[in-house]
């Protein structure tokens, strides 16, 4: 029998590798709207979470994953959580079947391996691991209880605890483990415990569903808790089942290995573990590195930090993101926003396929939980703070404690001047971890302190430029008009306004806006997309608005349009392919191919 089934140093190396993986690969995915910290010091919050089946693991997961805002700390915590899970599983399996190095290795790798599959979202990884961690702790406790002959008495209680702490599937796994260990050990002293556990597995969810908690049947019998997982990742729902099925399987594997008595040196096995984890890291880095999803998240982070140049650079360096097959409405939205902030929207808007037309530009429809904060941020940057507040409230209805959302609500209220309500939200927010500096800063601002993060000049400027009159904020174009009229230097509003008309292919509106000075520009120096639009407008409209002819079109664009016209009028069979190839990133391609509206191939 090997005394040390696995060496610690290689194990630690493998977890260091994991920390690197989490820090560089996973953590960039953390900075999204799901960032909802849990550490709110209200008994209501604690009780309402823990009261649910699997609530304890949910609460603990939410508590820990709030640290993901700090990339390094988040990575270390996840790795520590994984290590604790591995350690407890290994300890449990070792107690059951002895010092089998292969099984020890599997026990260490198992949480990591399954987590790889789950790591399309770090919160998912945290949540799944937290459930298994608690389950492994319960199994260790069960072993200890058996040792002291107490398990017979408290077995049902332990099973119920597992159910409420980790969820229904964990209860079934726990029961399966008890069955397997009973079968392997044939420990008749534990027969009562076995029967009690099985009875709990069969009846308790039924009792809970029928009598105790008003939860959905799937919540009582087979829902994967924490419930938040449902929102995080539908596609990996199967992962936790693998996770749970693996545990009793591991015991069985160990039992089989013990029977054929294969023994190896611990150090070799340990190194093998590192190799496997390393290989898995590389493999899953590629497998889960969905560039579009990653781009969306990264851009979101950059947008939160107003790092518009980063977004433009990122898009430039990742050309595949602009392919139609990789279209993503969030990438579209953030890219447009970055262009507008750099005053390049009319020049480069069609460098990304604007497949949703207006929807991609504004993102606000259809209304969904994940657009609340981005749209709020959009209006905030634009200076329409009332609309920013409205969408922040919409976001807050789902992400009640999110740092981003709470900060947006508070800042909007401060800018609007409703300090009383701002203070109310600050009081709510100050219970959240890491809110201290923000809270102090905003309070100081409201008390008139000049030296705060919230720049007073900025606030005064936004207040000054916010549309004073009342209007319904339903129409995006109307919103832009109002923002522009409140401050005719607002180039962002101006670009959005004109580009919105373009994306709608509404030439008359575009012409009216242009002629009426909603986009102040030298007649000889129109942005490229505008020139392309005007050429097409003149070509297809019988009633061109007077004055449009005064805008000068660059000869090379005119010549290109003539080529375009020739191509369209020739009507070759592969016209779409040729247009895409010869006239990429142009308004013409958008108008005839990418636009959501149906357009025939005609320039008459």
């Amino acid at each position: 029998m090997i005394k040390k089934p696995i060496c610690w140093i290689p194990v630690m190396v493998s977890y260091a590798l994991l920390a690197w993986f989490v820090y560089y690969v996973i953590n960039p995915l953390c900075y999204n709207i799901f960032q909802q910290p849990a550490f709110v010091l209200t008994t209501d919050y604690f009780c309402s979470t823990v009261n649910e089946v699997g609530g304890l693991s949910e609460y603990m997961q939410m508590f820990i994953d709030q640290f993901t805002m700090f990339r390094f700390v988040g990575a270390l915590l996840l790795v520590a959580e994984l290590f604790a899970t591995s350690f407890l599983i290994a300890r449990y399996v070792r107690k059951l079947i002895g010092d089998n190095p292969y099984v020890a290795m599997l026990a260490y790798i198992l949480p990591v391996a399954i987590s790889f599959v789950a790591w399309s979202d770090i919160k998912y990884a945290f949540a799944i691991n937290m459930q298994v961690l608690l389950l492994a702790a319960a199994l260790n406790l069960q072993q200890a209880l058996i040792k002291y002959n107490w398990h017979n008495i408290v077995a049902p209680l332990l099973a119920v605890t597992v159910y409420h702490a980790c969820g229904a599937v964990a209860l079934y796994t726990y029961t399966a483990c008890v069955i397997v260990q009973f079968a392997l050990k044939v420990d008749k002293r534990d027969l009562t415990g076995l029967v009690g556990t099985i009875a709990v597995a069969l009846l308790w969810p039924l009792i809970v569903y029928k009598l105790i908690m008003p939860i959905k049947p799937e919540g009582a019998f087979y829902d994967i808790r924490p419930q938040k997982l449902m929102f995080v990742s539908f596609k990996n729902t199967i992962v936790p089942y693998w996770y749970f099925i693996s545990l009793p399987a591991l015991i069985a594997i160990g039992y089989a290995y013990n029977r054929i008595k294969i023994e190896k040196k611990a150090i070799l096995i340990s190194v093998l573990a590192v190799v496997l984890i390393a290989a898995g890291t590389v493999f899953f880095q590629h497998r889960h590195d969905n560039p579009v999803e990653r781009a969306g998240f990264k851009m979101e982070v950059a947008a939160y930090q107003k790092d518009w140049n980063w977004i433009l650079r990122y898009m430039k360096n990742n050309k595949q993101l602009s392919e139609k097959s990789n279209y993503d409405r969030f990438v579209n939205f953030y890219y447009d926003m970055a262009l507008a902030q750099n005053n390049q929207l009319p020049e480069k808007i069609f460098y990304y396929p604007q497949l949703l037309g207006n929807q991609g530009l504004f993102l606000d429809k259809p209304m969904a939980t994940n657009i609340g904060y981005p749209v709020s941020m959009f209006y905030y940057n634009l200076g329409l703070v009332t609309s920013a507040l409205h969408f922040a409230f919409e976001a807050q209805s789902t992400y009640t404690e999110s740092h981003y959302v709470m900060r947006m609500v508070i800042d909007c209220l401060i800018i609007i001047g409703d300090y009383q309500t701002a203070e109310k939200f600050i009081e709510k927010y100050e219970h959240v971890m890491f809110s201290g500096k923000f809270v102090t800063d905003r309070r100081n601002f409201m008390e008139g302190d000049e030296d705060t993060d919230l720049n007073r000049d900025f606030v005064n400027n936004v207040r000054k430029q916010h549309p004073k009159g009342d209007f319904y904020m339903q129409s995006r174009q109307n919103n832009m008009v109002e923002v522009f009229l409140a401050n005719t230097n607002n180039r962002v509003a101006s670009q959005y306004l004109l580009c919105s008309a373009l994306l709608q292919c509404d030439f008359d509106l575009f012409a009216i806006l242009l002629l009426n000075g909603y986009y102040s520009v030298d007649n000889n120096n129109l942005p490229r997309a505008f020139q392309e639009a005007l050429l097409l407008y003149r070509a297809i409209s019988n009633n061109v608005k007077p004055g449009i002819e005064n805008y000068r079109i660059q000869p090379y664009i005119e010549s290109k349009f003539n080529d375009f016209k020739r191509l369209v009028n020739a009507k070759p069979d592969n016209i779409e392919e040729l247009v895409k190839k010869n006239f990429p990133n142009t308004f013409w391609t958008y108008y005839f191919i990418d636009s959501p509206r149906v357009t025939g191939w005609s320039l008459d």
Partner: protein
Amino acid sequence: MKKLLYYTLLMPLLVACSSSFNDCATSDSKPNIYPDYTDIVIPVNIAPLNFKAYGGADVLAVEVRAGDEIVNLKCRDGKAIWNNRKWRSLLSSHVGDTLFYTVTMSDTIGLTVKFAPFWQVVSPDSIDSHIAYRLINTGYVLWDKMGIYERCLENFKQKPIIENSSVDLACMNCHSFSAQNPNTMLLHIRKYNGGTAILYDGKLQKYNTKTDISMSAGVYPSWNSNGYLIAMSTNLISQQFHNDYGKRIYVSDSKSDIVLLNMKTQTLTTCPELSTKDLENLPAWAPDGRTLYYVSAPQRVGEKGFDEGYWYSLLRITYDEATNSWGTADTVLRAKDLGGSITFPKVSPNGRYIAFTFANRGYFTPFNREADIHLLDLKTNEITTPEGVNSSSTESNHGWSHNGHWLVVGSKWPDGLFTKPYFAHFDGNGNFSKRFLLPQEDPDFYDDYTLNYNNTDFITGEVPTTPIQWRDAIKADPIPVKADPSVDIDALSGATQPAKK
């Protein structure tokens, strides 16, 4: 030695507690406390009214004098907290008496001031033991968790009637009771598991109230006092958001009518007067069970701008259940005469008064900053604006208690954002006392509470169902209600359909 240590530790506490603040400054003004429980009428069965000083000061001592009895209130963390038993015994032994509170507070710079006493009259008119309400975040389009809750007014216990986490996070609202009777209740469910869950005759079932003769499922309900007739509006609702922060949101209907659901026959009926091209809405039965009050506004034509001047009038119509026949619609209050919109009429249990919300536009007033509660005396046709009930912020969603001596009002005061329930005593002669906020065990409760109390209504006891029963009823397929075959007018805003033979 142990005893010595014990007394040494206890001594400073004893000294602090016995401090009478006799040498502190005095003030002629009344203390600024939160919630404002000064100079109010309170029901004999209300939960303890704990309070704190407003604006960061500390309450150091509170002496309550009721006749010859003097009670010194426990002050903890700068807050005045009643002992439950002491409070209960004080109220029950001083029904009809006045309690005088002398409060000593220290302000933020440490100055100790004894304020002039304020009073609370213990009314013998008890308040209904419970209220029911929805708790929801301040989202206007989206929602996540929400629920309908009941709260015992005699203590601080709140229980969910149903939370939406058990029914796929469906939206739920418009909970309504028949004459404050918790045994007869309805609740609309939307988005997921849609329908109207109705607790009637001891059975809890979900119904589909949309029929061929109605433009939508039932919306704003009102139970007849007979317990089986439910008048409901059918509406096509839209909402728009204002740039003006004070106005926030405007909810309006493009069409609306009123229908009547008979739970005995599970039949939906209507009449021409309630299904005109005008916008009939917000039905409210009078306690006689024969008169139905409702509001109505002219048909909307074209763009209305902000709808300033788009007003609802108050009408009524009689209904004879025996013959299933309706009388003629009669205008009770013309909006034009009042210069504003009359909405949410609620008839007092004795049938003499109607409390309604008065606003400068529309019917859905929970976001109208100017909305106030008005009182119409049907005997004298006099309209008053009870000062104690209203504030500078929104007042709406009000309801009468079973005995007609208490009014609950949803008010967005002071922040204009979060609705909280207030209660005011009604003397039966048109006079309301100053309102007071729903008491909470911890006076800090509302400081960081960001849920809205929606549509608070009195009930005379606990709803005799469990959340599990509601879940099962809501998850079940809805029972379709029948359209009354004798009706040849549909509730599609006046569009007639061929008479059914």
